[in-house]
Each structure stands twice: as C-alpha cells, then as structure tokens.
C-alpha cells in the first residue's frame, strides 16, 4: 500500500464536508511532503498520525456543533411541544390525585398515604411550573425550569418512598419526564468560535 493510499484512508477521520472541501488539497500537500521526506521513517508517520489525531476530532466537534446551531429552531419547537405535554400531563395527574383524594376522603386514610399524595401533587405542580417555564423559555431562561424539575424529582422520589404502590403511569410522569427534560435543558447549545482555532 502506498503512502498516499494510507493517507487517503486517514482522511476518513475528518468530517465529510471538510473532506469534500479540502481533501484534494490535503492529499496534494501530503504528496509534496512525501517528495521532500523519507516516508519509510517512523518519525514521518508519527508526525502524520499526530496531525490527524490533533486536528480531526476538533473539526468533527466543530461540524457537530455547527449542525447543532443550524437545528436550534427545530430544537426550540421540540422543547415547546415538550413543555405543552408536560403541562397537560402534570395537570392530568393533579386532577387524578385530587379525584382519588376526594373519593378516599370518605373513609379513614393512612397518614403516610396522605403525605405521599400531598408530595405527589406538589411534585406535579412543580412539573406544571417547569412546563410553563419551558414554554416561556425565551423570557425566563432555562434556570427556573431546571430548579422546578429538580424539586419535582425530589418530591416524586419522596412520595414513592412513602407509598411504594404508586402506579407505573405516575412513576413515569414523576421520574421519567423530569429526567428527560433535565437532560434536554442541560444539553450544550453553544456554537464554535474562531477562538477555538
């Protein structure tokens, strides 16, 4: 296998767009280097591999971040939909819990159960607040939504510990939804700058 063919394989480490734009120039430059260096030495290949290892990951990250910034609008729309779903689900669970409370209030209720229901309702009120904060994200920023989600998750965990027979649906809304939204809210959205060069 010739040195140029090896280098052509190494070029696959770079992002496709970058390769399409500069691949030919890079091959040409590599050919120039081969003409003036001894390609059979370890030092030559160490420099070649070091160059690829140093530059390709940075360019991959830049390309990935670039795509991220292009998709910002789509992500914002998805977050709005997630915010609306959160509000609807939280409201549904609150109404269900209150209905259950009213139905069960005729008989004697265990103290732990009462506390679990109160915590569950509180968690869903916070979840509802987080949903509203996500919907008004442009005005409030992400921090209020994150705080509400953290508090909601803690309340849901406390309610689950007090009342282990919590329904699967309530657990999905109480744990799964805040965790998924927290991941989405902490996902980096910054784009690359020239300073990264």
């Amino acid at each position, binding site marked *: 296998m010739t040195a140029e063919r090896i280098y052509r394989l190494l070029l696959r480490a770079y992002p496709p767009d970058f390769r399409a*734009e500069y691949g030919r*120039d890079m091959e040409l*430059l590599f050919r120039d280097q081969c003409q003036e260096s001894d390609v059979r030495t370890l030092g030559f290949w160490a420099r070649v591999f070091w160059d*690829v290892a140093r530059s390709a990951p940075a360019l991959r990250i830049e390309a990935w971040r670039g795509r991220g910034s292009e998709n910002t609008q789509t992500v914002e729309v998805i977050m709005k939909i997630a915010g609306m779903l959160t509000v609807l689900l939280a409201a549904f669970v609150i109404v269900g819990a209150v209905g259950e409370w009213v139905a069960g209030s005729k008989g004697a209720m265990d103290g732990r159960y009462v506390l679990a229901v109160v915590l569950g309702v509180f968690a869903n009120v916070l979840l509802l607040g987080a949903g509203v904060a996500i919907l008004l994200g442009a005005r409030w920023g992400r921090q209020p939504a994150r705080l509400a989600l953290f508090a909601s998750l803690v309340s849901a965990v406390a309610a689950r510990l007090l009342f282990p027979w919590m329904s699967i649906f309530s657990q999905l809304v109480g744990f799964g939804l805040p965790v998924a939204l927290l991941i989405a809210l902490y996902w980096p959205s910054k784009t690359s700058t020239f300073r*990264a*060069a």
Partner: protein
Amino acid sequence: MVRKRQAGRSPEAYLPLPPATFHILLALADGELHGYAIMKGVAARSAGTVRLGPGTLYGALKRLLEAGLVGEGRERADPERGDERRRYYRLTPLGLSVARAEAHRLDALVRAARRKRLIGVRPA
C-alpha cells in the same frame, strides 16, 4: 465555500491568536500563497519548531476563511511544483488588521519582559 463574515468585530476581539494561526497570517503577509508554501514558510520562520501538518493547516485556514481573515485567490498551478492546480490564499484587510493587532500585543509583552530583564540581558 461558506464565509460567515463576522461584521462589526474589532481586530482586538480575535486576540489572542493561537500560535499556528498567527504563523499562517504572517506567512500570508508576503502575498498569495498555496497550502504547501504556507507550510514551508511557517517551518522556515520558526526554524522548524512549528510544523503544520495538512490537517492542522487546512483546519486553521477553514476557520480563517469563515472568520473573513483570509480570502481565496485564483486557483492556478505552481510552476515550481508541477501542473496540478492549487488553491491560493491571501490576507483580507481584516486579517491584516488582526495580524497587526496580534503583533502589537506580542510586542508589548516582549517589551514588558525586557523591562523586567527576562530577555535582552546576558546571563551572569
């Protein structure tokens, strides 16, 4: 080639430049050059201490083009290096201003080091 001109940014906003980037701008201060000529110029100017491989060089050139500090010249063959057509690069007015600003910044640092007798004094 997409060029995102970052209009309204002062040359100082780009500082400090990474060493490889400043070397590329310095090389292009001589006029239009293709990739290999830039690489050779950088190696010669730094006495071989800065060696730009193809990935580092074209990665930096891509960023410089996007920032509007470097522009593309006419593609042509280098008579010294065969018939293959090569892409040439040149400094833009903004690139020249940024290179000057970086040179001034480094000059101020060197003068400060000299005042503190870190350089320019023979060791006892």
